[in-house]
């Protein structure tokens, strides 16, 4: 049986995965134009600068869009149906994720709902996923 896909870091993405292992969501921003961005890469997509730095994001996000998959990827058979979501981080960039701690139904997954990051072990890697932020924001 094939398990769930496990990301294999590259030198450019290693700091991201290291931060996840430490329970933090670290992303990059440009020190020339100030724009934060995701996915990790060594050049600012807004201005082309190589002067980029890592910073710890708040981990807060909102639900931007999603589907609820009835078609399992390898290893996901027992999770059906499950949401594949895109969240918008409080800092602006968006990322794909799964939503945990709430039934993955259209009724429970309301666009723009407040979320916060949490982490799930996947092989050697700690994978960022998101859960409802509740009332403690």
């Amino acid at each position, binding site marked *: 049986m094939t398990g*769930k*896909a*496990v*990301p*294999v*870091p*590259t030198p450019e*993405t290693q700091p991201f995965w290291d931060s996840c292992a430490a329970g933090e969501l670290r992303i990059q921003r440009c020190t020339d134009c100030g724009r934060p961005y*995701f*996915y990790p890469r060594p050049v600012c997509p807004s201005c082309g600068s190589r002067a980029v730095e890592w910073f710890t994001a708040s981990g807060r996000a909102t639900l*931007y*869009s*999603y*589907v*609820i*998959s*009835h*078609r*399992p*990827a390898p290893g*996901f058979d027992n*999770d059906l*149906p*499950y949401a*594949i*979501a*895109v969240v918008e981080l409080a800092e602006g960039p*968006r*990322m*794909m*994720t*799964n939503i945990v701690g709430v039934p993955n139904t*259209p009724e429970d997954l309301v*666009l723009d709902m407040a979320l916060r990051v949490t982490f799930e072990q*996947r092989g050697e*890697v700690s*994978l960022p996923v998101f859960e409802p932020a509740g009332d403690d924001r």
Partner: protein
Amino acid sequence: MTGVIIAGAAETDRVGKLPGHSTLALHLEAALNALADAGLAPGDIDGIATVSAPGPVQVAHALGIVPRWLDGTGVGGTSFLLHVRHAAAAIAAGQATTILITHGESGRSRIGAARMSPGPSSMPGQFEAPYGVSGAPTAFTIPALRYMKEYGLTHEQLAYVAVAQRKWAARNPRAMYRDPITIADVLASRLVAYPFHLLECCLVTDGGGALIVTSADRAGGFPRPPVHLLGAGESCESPLISQMEDFTESGAFRRAGQAALGEARISTADVDHLMIYDAFAHLPIYGLEALGFVRKGEAGPFIADGNTEPGGRLPLNTNGGGLSYTHTGMYGMFAIQEAVRQVRGEAAAQAGEVAISVVLGVGGMFATSGALVLGRVPR
């Protein structure tokens, strides 16, 4: 005005389930059919273009063609639209005179087919695959819910895209699905990736198609009526669906489409017939808005009001589209083929007199786009 014509165009003998054909065999059958359509032999071809698997070298070698111009652009299902544009530039530059563009894909039977999953170190492999993406149906579809919230597109309007296209497919004997369907049928088909039901997702088939592009100076010198390339465009956006700039519109569609319309010096009012690559039901909606046929948020009601179906004022996806006709995985070639047939006046579901047809293609998941404006006469 690009100075080139499509002098030959043909699909494989059949499309659908073809377990006796490998991907390469589909390329070759389509190529020979297109050559016959143009009254040419392989030795007349001096340029070749196709996607990276099996690639232009393999196709040329198998046909005994020794090209002096090659294009292996492989940017997903829209690649063939880009090949046409690149061919026009090559012919204008004198790099080739007669270019063969081929597509073949054993998408359903997977005979001699390329693997598709991303490597675990690629950006999709690191930042999307771990979340359970299982091919295009569970990723290409993700933007739609945002669009529905922002613009009030209803589940019924999304379903109606499939209903409208089935009406065209019913008139096309080669279409895989021809029986009429209703909104209720679509919404009762099984959920693939909410909000998308099975009938809102494209088919997976085997098939191929090929084109012969040459100088417009030779128009009239071939058995079939020439189809002039009046304009073309190409663009791209993000390799990751999650990084698409705005989930309610395709920048790649807009840029490629506007470039093509601009080069052809036409407006949407000049367009008699339209093909928009419909891997999923939301794509015609995004395409109509990106090309400017309707304003943002209006495409769902526009289709639901019958404007794009038989008898409507803007015939769209008249072969039945990827939803009902055929979809090998890289459907762009079939969208071009139908536009050529419509301009020639020989389509199964001919949409009246078609002087100008526009083809809008997508590659990857809103990752790339190509657009062509085809016409019966140069302008």
